[in-house]
């Protein structure tokens, strides 16, 4: 791993050079441009039809995705060679954030650009990339990602869907059921995980008209109603051998590593939604008058606003810091064919990506809850919007690995490194105790300077 300046989870045991840290203040003109495009798209194209999206007029989503594709908002992470823009991971984070406030549409969009497209971008063959990526980049085709099964949720690798090569050796025959599949109803491609011969966990690209593929009824969800969620059933579904993705028995490398980027992006969307909720709430409290003045003027309201803003600041800071780290790890691997290296690099910042997901989804839940509360009775009424934000927020703590699974992953990663001898846990512990026991100087000044001294 000599190619990386930073190593995964190194924030736990080494100090940081602020010069190397990426922050929103470092945005380039290109970053700002794609951000402005994405924001305009969300505000002008998506928000005006929100009610129809909420009513599940599903034909709207592919139309909007096509428009997003025309603007390059689906193509940022796809190499230019395959019809994409080949932008960096910062841009990915920015688009994710701008799309974040659009509820169900945003989930459909992010699901498509992340977990449904990235497996092909990073693990596809030349032919697969040529065939699928240009269509996924333009929005002509929409993608879905099929991992979850009735008996395989958090324990994803225990999947029961099987794939058996036919006698002619031309097709795999898939059997099994995937559930809670986002974008199911309007998807053209499905990334499907199945066990070859019931044993070897493997990824496939399945097209919607593959014989033997069918969809279950639409689920009735609590929130993100604009994104379709259905089961996808495979009954002797024939998939061409050429559509095997990666290697037989190495589907876990794709499944788990792609989720890292998915978790990072989910955090970005949560930051965007949080900012939007705060903005809407400030507008409301400045208009709503009680006891002879706007409720915005009451100190208790101000304190709530400050606490929301401070959490959003931290979430925004850690999201773009992580974006910088991922870019460092993957920036030059957009068109790499060394899939083992790609897998390794994607997994390097697994802890940071898990934190993005957990922290930012909880900031959004906190913000949504306080936004609704500050709306008072109006918060409970649909037309003011806080109600939808509250419902839409909740899924973020669940999908792409529950926050509990992601939490467990964080210390486990550190202990694995310790057991491999990559981190000397015993001496780091001793150091920590020595520091706690006094040698920290008492200083005046701002919080952050003290904190810095504490770390050194």
């Amino acid at each position: 791993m000599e190619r990386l300046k930073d190593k995964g989870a190194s924030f736990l045991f080494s100090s940081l050079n602020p010069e190397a840290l990426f922050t929103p203040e470092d945005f380039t003109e290109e970053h700002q441009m794609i951000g402005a495009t994405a924001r305009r798209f969300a505000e002008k194209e998506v928000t005006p039809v929100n009610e129809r999206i909420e009513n599940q007029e599903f034909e709207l989503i592919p139309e909007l995705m096509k428009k997003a594709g025309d603007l390059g908002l689906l193509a940022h992470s796809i190499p230019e060679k395959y019809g994409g823009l080949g932008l960096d991971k910062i841009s990915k984070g920015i688009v994710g954030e701008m799309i974040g406030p659009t509820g169900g549409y945003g989930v459909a969009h992010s699901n498509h650009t992340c977990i449904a497209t990235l497996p092909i971008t990073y693990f596809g063959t030349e032919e697969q990339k040529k065939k699928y990526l240009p269509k996924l980049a333009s929005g002509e085709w929409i993608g879905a990602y099929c991992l979850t099964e009735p008996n395989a949720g958090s324990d994803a690798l225990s999947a029961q869907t099987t794939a058996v090569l036919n006698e002619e050796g031309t097709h795999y025959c898939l059997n099994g059921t995937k559930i809670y599949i986002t974008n199911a109803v309007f998807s053209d491609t499905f990334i499907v995980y199945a066990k070859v011969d019931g044993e070897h966990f493997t990824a496939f690209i399945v097209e919607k008209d593959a014989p033997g593929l069918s969809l279950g009824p639409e689920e009735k969800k609590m929130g993100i109603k604009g994104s379709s969620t259905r089961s996808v059933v495979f009954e002797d579904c024939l998939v061409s051998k050429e559509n095997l993705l990666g290697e037989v028995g190495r589907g876990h490398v794709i499944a788990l590593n792609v989720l890292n980027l998915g978790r990072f992006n989910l955090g970005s969307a949560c930051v965007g939604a949080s900012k939007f909720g705060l903005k809407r709430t400030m507008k409301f409290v400045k208009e709503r008058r009680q006891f002879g003045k706007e409720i915005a003027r009451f100190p208790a309201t101000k304190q709530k606003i400050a606490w929301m803003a401070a959490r959003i600041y931290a979430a925004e800071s850690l999201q773009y810091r992580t974006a910088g780290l991922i870019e460092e790890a993957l920036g030059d691997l957009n068109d790499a064919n060394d899939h083992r290296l790609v897998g390794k690099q994607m997994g390097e910042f697994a802890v940071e990506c898990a934190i993005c997901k957990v922290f930012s989804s909880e900031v959004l839940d906190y913000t949504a809850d306080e936004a609704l509360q500050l709306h008072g009775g109006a918060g409970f009424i649909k037309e003011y919007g806080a109600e939808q934000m509250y419902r839409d927020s909740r899924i973020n703590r669940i999908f792409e690995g529950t926050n509990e699974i992601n939490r467990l992953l964080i210390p486990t990663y550190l202990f694995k490194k310790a057991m491999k001898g990559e981190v000397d846990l015993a001496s780091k512990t001793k150091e920590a105790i020595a520091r706690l026991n006094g040698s920290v100087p008492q200083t005046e000044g701002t919080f952050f300077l003290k904190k810095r001294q504490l770390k050194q």
Partner: protein
Amino acid sequence: MLQAGLIYEVYGPALVHEQEALMNLADLAIGLYAAESAVYRTYKAILNNGEERESAKIALTRTFLQKTLWETERISRVLLVDLTEGEKREKLMASVIQACSRYQSFSLVYENRKIADRLYDKEQYVC
């Protein structure tokens, strides 16, 4: 790192079954990553623009740190009770409380009001 070391020391490789401790440890790590990201972002901004022009970032960082420090102290104390006993517990507990409380003597009531006023002015999240 202290807490991580303690868990490793107490449970060894069997620690994967100690989910209660692992969840607490995760929260410490999350708090550290978030706080460090905010602090260094603000620090970097000050290096470039000076404290005066970055007063919004400083205020937001302080407010976030205040919350995070209390939470860190709370979790650390719970973990110490779960993982240690006797004299070792007493000594470590005193160290943790002392280390955390050193940075908790700020009142942010007025600063928080100022944060809100600044945001009201712009009618959106700004930093």
